[in-house]
């Protein structure tokens, strides 16, 4: 089927998945013993207070009514008002304030990670079993084995404490205000967040490259006199990149997890840290909104990756045979 139909089909399939996810999110908060109000107030407050607030917030209505209302509002962009993180402020505003930092952190990490990982994977495969390959493989293996929050701590210890760089002090200056300051703030966090992701991509790239280089069409290109470098860069890489693109989708989940931890370690005021704060203060509206938001982004990102894969691989794009 054509690309447009494929995209449409995937979009339609995503709808029930997202609905299911929203049910999970909603159910999560309301499953807490005592209900969300109890979660918010903590175990020490009186039962009367709980009841009173429940009525105020409309939480005494039947669950399905609450769910429908919430979903209806959410689709229109109204995710409620924060109770404890920033009382009275619409949740969407709170998220919007913190989102740019997280986006910058994530995107920068992705870019840097890929810029390192893809060439590393290619070189590793081309020079299989030579010392540079061994070194790269060990580096990549270490990369996926080191927890990002620990890496962040160690980096802080080494650079901030030992060498006295006043970085990683928290806070965020937008790049359009002061790009240099912005870079200083994000340097260590990007290294922290991007390492595991980069290692994952590098390993995948190496593996796919090795597989591609053993294919018959590589032999054909060589037999026709095409120079090795061109064979590697043109014939092999394009084929190997296609499956790697799918890993980007998987890696995004990893990046989201990592962003929460990295922002916590480096005290960066982003969406990840907001999540932790909301948990600590039991602001269920914020928690609900954030988890839903993350799920939506994740689902659409995976969808985009699938469509991209279909676009890149002509075998999927053009289904006709002879």
């Amino acid at each position, binding site marked *: 089927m054509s690309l447009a139909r494929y995209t449409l089909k995937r979009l339609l399939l995503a709808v029930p998945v997202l609905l299911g996810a929203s049910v999970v999110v909603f159910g999560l908060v309301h499953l807490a013993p005592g209900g969300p109000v109890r979660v918010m107030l903590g175990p020490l407050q009186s039962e009367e207070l709980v009841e009173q607030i429940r009525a105020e917030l409309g939480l005494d209505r039947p669950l399905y009514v609450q769910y429908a209302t919430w979903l209806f509002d959410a689709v229109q962009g109204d995710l409620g008002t924060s109770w404890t993180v920033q009382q009275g402020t619409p949740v969407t505003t709170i998220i919007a304030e913190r989102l740019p930092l997280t986006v910058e952190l994530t995107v920068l990490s992705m870019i840097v990670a890929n810029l390192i990982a893809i060439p590393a994977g290619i070189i590793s495969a081309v020079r299989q079993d030579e010392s540079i390959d061994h070194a790269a493989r060990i580096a990549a293996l270490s990369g996926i084995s080191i927890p990002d929050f620990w890496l962040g701590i160690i980096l802080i210890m080494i650079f901030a404490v030992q060498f006295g760089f006043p970085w990683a002090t928290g806070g965020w200056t937008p790049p359009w205000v002061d790009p240099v300051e912005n870079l200083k703030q994000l340097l260590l966090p990007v290294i922290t967040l991007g390492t595991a992701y980069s290692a994952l991509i590098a390993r995948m790239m190496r593996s796919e490259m090795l597989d591609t280089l053993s294919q018959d069409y590589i*032999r*054909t290109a060589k*037999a026709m006199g095409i120079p090795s470098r061109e064979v590697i860069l043109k014939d092999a890489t394009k*084929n190997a990149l296609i499956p790697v693109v799918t890993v980007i989708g998987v890696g995004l989940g990893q990046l989201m997890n990592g962003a929460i931890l990295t922002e916590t370690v480096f005290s960066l005021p982003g969406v990840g840290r907001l999540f932790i704060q909301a948990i600590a203060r039991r602001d269920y509206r914020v928690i609900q909104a954030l988890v839903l938001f993350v799920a939506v982004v994740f689902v659409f990102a995976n969808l985009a990756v699938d469509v991209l894969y279909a676009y890149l691989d002509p075998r999927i794009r053009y289904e006709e045979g002879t």
Partner: protein
Amino acid sequence: MTDPILEVEDLATRFYTDEGVVEAVDGVSFDLYEGETVGIVGESGSGKSVTAMSIMGLIDSPGRVEEGTIRYRGEDLLERSESGIREIRGGEISMIFQDPMTSLNPVYTVGEQISRVIRQHRDVSQSEARARAVELMGDVGIPEAESRVDNYPHQFSGGMRQRALIAMAISCEPEILIADEPTTALDVTIEAQIFDVLEELQETYGMSVILITHDLGVVAGTAERVNVMYAGRIVERADVDALFENPRHPYTRGLMRSIPRLHGSADRLEPIAGSVPNPAALPSGCSFHPRCPHATELCRGYDPELREVEPGREAACVHARGYGGPDERATGSGEPVAADGGDDDE
């Protein structure tokens, strides 16, 4: 008699594997004259493909071409640099392989792949190369070449893909085309078409062809001279008619007996006993002797060279008529050695 366009002499290619040294090609010599089609026949493991890859310079580690010369128009290819060989590959000596289904890059169009080969060896523009690609696709019999030039390989059938690969191989009008089992993966009817195409192209471009195959039937219809390979060596060489009429080497005879024939007696098919030896552990003496119905004591210890047994025919068997082996009075049930004396060396 003019000089041959390709002279292979004492070629030896070895592979250094974990299981030991494999002498895939062990002293192979043959000539190719301009315009002729020479066949190389053998089973899997005989070294025929490795020979072709050695000529093309496509042997990668753990393999190495270690001995011999490959003279193309008088110049030893083995002395050329890597970039020198690349010029020859595809430009003057081309090769097509056995697996058309996997030999084309799936993410580029067929036209792109052919054009790129043209532009590698000729200084032409992209549009000129593309036009030539369309022309070539038509020459090899791909219908509607104009529109199909922008199709991807998976949109072609196996036979069409092989034609596209042939188009790619002849795009720069090579002097020599090496075809390694070009039709083994295709249906018999398609096979005939492919050979028609090859014949036509050979005439048009005056190419010399080395045809590698395990199929005697294919060789009978297309080659003029035939080399029979076994365990890394050529064991018999003759003009095609002479070979089929009266094969001299027991292996060749065994091959002939093991394929069905349309005419002739409806005898039982006789497969050759035993199986191809492990290239890392070849038998002593004559490599074929464990499977040979005529093997004698001599064969266990003496490794026969390829030698003329008749004008224009060579065989590597002490019991071949006219061989003149070391022990004229061969014992056992072998073929009698020629009475008109041969040499008495060794």
